């Protein structure tokens, strides 16, 4: 009963553009013929829906239903729902350095964090102490993941978060943490693009994190056990087994940190923390100054070449100048204290 419909297109120029006139051969349809054609089409759909599924895009009939909880469509890599935090699988170190970029850019203001501090010195370290995201108000814009310089915050594919607990959608760091391997699984190409730089930055940050600060909470026990093992193996004659290597590395790192901390204790009282500047930028500068002070005894001399190197970036220059000033001040204070 299929009626061959001849399509014949002609163009008509109107004042507002072209109009395409299609001859659908309507006059050739007798009464009721169109109705029968419709019935036939519907019946074909009915018959095919009983026997097969709609799998190929070229296919026109067949059941297209995806029975959701059991069957799921494969999500595209760029699918984004809510942000998560990444940590390194091996060391347990989080990539986040609490730079506050995400908190600043978040349009609905649902990201909150506090920076970790060295318990011994009270100095901030590039790690995050607590991280909260209110998923219930999050709008899944993905700006936090875009802005993160350390690739620590990424958008997740998980979307089944419904709960009947009030406040159950305010997630803390432990709930937000995912291993890098997880993200690599859901978005392999995206992670491959940023993997090297992210890991490099992480290595840099790890050096400045004392003890277990910056280790993902769920990994703390494991890492501690590993370190203990590494410490037990350290006196052993064959320390450089492949398995022990990371642990060894961590141990060395820890040792280096301990040394740095000792130095910092020597330099106490920390001037920047004492003066407690309210200005964040000043605090940043103070940290830099402290770092600079750590690096060399002659603080002023060390700061001066930094200024000389004349960074192109204005902000960087400003920071450098501030650092130099702070270093000078710190040097003066130390001189005073030594006297």
């Amino acid at each position, binding site marked *: 009963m299929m009626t061959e419909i001849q399509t014949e297109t002609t163009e008509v120029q109107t004042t507002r553009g072209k109009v395409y006139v299609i001859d659908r051969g309507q*006059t050739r349809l*007798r*009464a*009721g013929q169109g*109705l029968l054609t*419709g*019935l036939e*089409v*519907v*019946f074909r*759909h*009915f018959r095919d*829906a*009983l026997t097969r599924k*709609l799998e190929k895009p070229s296919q026109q*009939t*067949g*059941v*297209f*239903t995806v*029975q959701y909880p059991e069957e799921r469509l494969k999500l595209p890599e760029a699918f984004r729902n809510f942000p998560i935090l990444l940590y390194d699988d091996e060391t347990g170190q989080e990539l986040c350095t609490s730079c506050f970029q995400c908190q600043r850019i978040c349009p609905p203001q649902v990201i909150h964090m506090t920076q970790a501090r060295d318990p011994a010195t009270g100095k901030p370290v590039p790690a995050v102490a607590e991280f909260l995201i209110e998923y219930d108000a999050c709008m899944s814009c993905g700006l936090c993941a875009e802005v993160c310089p350390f690739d620590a915050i990424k958008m997740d594919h998980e979307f089944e978060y419904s709960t009947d607990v009030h406040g159950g959608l305010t997630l803390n760091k432990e709930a937000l943490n995912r291993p890098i391997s997880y993200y690599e699984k859901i978005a392999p190409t995206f992670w491959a693009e940023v993997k090297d730089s992210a890991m490099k930055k992480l290595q840099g940050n790890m050096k400045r994190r004392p003890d277990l600060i910056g280790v993902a909470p769920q990994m703390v026990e494991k890492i501690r056990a590993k370190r203990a093992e590494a410490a037990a193996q350290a006196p052993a004659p064959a320390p450089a087994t492949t398995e022990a290597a990371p642990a060894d590395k961590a141990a060395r790192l820890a040792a280096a940190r301990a040394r740095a901390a000792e130095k910092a204790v020597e330099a106490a009282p920390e001037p920047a923390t004492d003066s407690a500047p309210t200005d964040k930028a000043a605090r940043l500068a103070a940290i830099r100054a402290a770092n600079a002070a750590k690096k060399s005894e002659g603080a002023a001399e060390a700061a001066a070449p930094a200024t000389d190197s004349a960074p192109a970036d204005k902000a960087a220059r400003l920071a450098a100048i501030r650092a130099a000033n702070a270093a000078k001040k710190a040097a003066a204070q130390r001189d005073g204290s030594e006297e």
Partner: protein
Amino acid sequence: MTDILRSWIGSALPDWLIVLIAYLLVTTIVLFYAVGNFIMMVWAERRVVARMQDRLGPNRVGPAGLLQPIADAVKMFTKEDIVPRNADRWVHLLAPIVALAPVAMMLAVIPWGRGWEPIDLNVALLYMVAVSAVSGVGLMMAGWGSNNKFALLGAMRAVAQLVSYEIPAVTALLTVVILAGGMSLLDLPYMQAGVPIMGATILCGDPAGCSPLLYSTITSFPGSPSEPVQALDLGLGWWVFTPVGLLGFLVFFIAALAEGERTPFDIPEADSEIVAGYMTEYSGMKFATFYIAQYILNFALSALAATAFLGGWQGPGVAALANMGGPWVHVAAALSAFYLLAKIWILFFVMIWLRGAFPRLRVDQLMDFAWKLLLPLALVNIMSASLVVGLTQWTSAQWGGLVNLDGFAPWQRQLIAVLVTAVINIAATYWILSINQRPKQVEWDEEELVVAP
């Protein structure tokens, strides 16, 4: 039923009480039958229409979603019953009942199987039509009592549609009345015995040599007052196989679609235009009552169409089983009940099919369809039906000497009648369809044209 009860209870109870109990029992059985079918219909409609739209439909509750209607029922029971503040409380409350009761009453006269007939009413066909018209009052009450403009609009549309389509429906049923020579529904399946097209006209030549499995005692012609004869009976002499019955069936079925407010005639509850029509202000069990009324109306109309044109419970094997006597009569009854149910369900499937395929008509298209297409066809069909009766039964004296068929055998007369009516019906259908064709190109007077701003 009364007799069975009498034999069981005997003289323990007064006679009128036994009659009353028997009636109540039969009523209960029929209503349960209908409601069980309603439940299955809701499920089937959702599943089938889903497949037609390349979906799966409800398949979670119970095996293949079979318990879904029960889940729906629980939901309906527990929903809050909301009555609008300015509604007419009593009318609002009574409307679903008035809509459901007549529909349930329709079930009383349908022969559900061979020997399974609740009531023998000699005006059963008219009764069906009359009672189904009453539910219009319920719809009107719902529309008015809700104090809602959409409800009122929906009710007006529903009632206008119901009243308009009653005319083609009744006219199509008149065909059956002419063929059967009466309005009783009980006789209709018996009359539709025999073989397709020829009906019960192939007589048994030798009464001794005719197997009771093939031949049974039936009335040879539709509506014939003559004595029953032994004729070949395959249980397939359905009237739908003759030109008259086919046209009557089509007209009646389309009109029944409109009466049952099925797509494409679901204008009264066009949800894209007037929310839910007269059901707009109903919730919970009242809404469910309307829903039940609608489906049972469809069920009853399908049963009526099946009984009037598709042979009712008649089917191959029923007569043979019944002729074997003894307990086989009950088997025959069960088989015949199955046949009727199968026919109803096939018709219901067609309803779902149409729903899956066609969009809703506009009101003016609806009226045009009834008055310009269905009614003329039904009128032509009445003439054809009269010709069938005349050609198969009348003597030449009754024809006034115009037609003399006295010497022909019954099957020859039946064949002549079929051929004549086929020619008339096909010609009339073609002509009516062609004059209803859309004109090839509309010509306008260009001065009249107004270009939209």
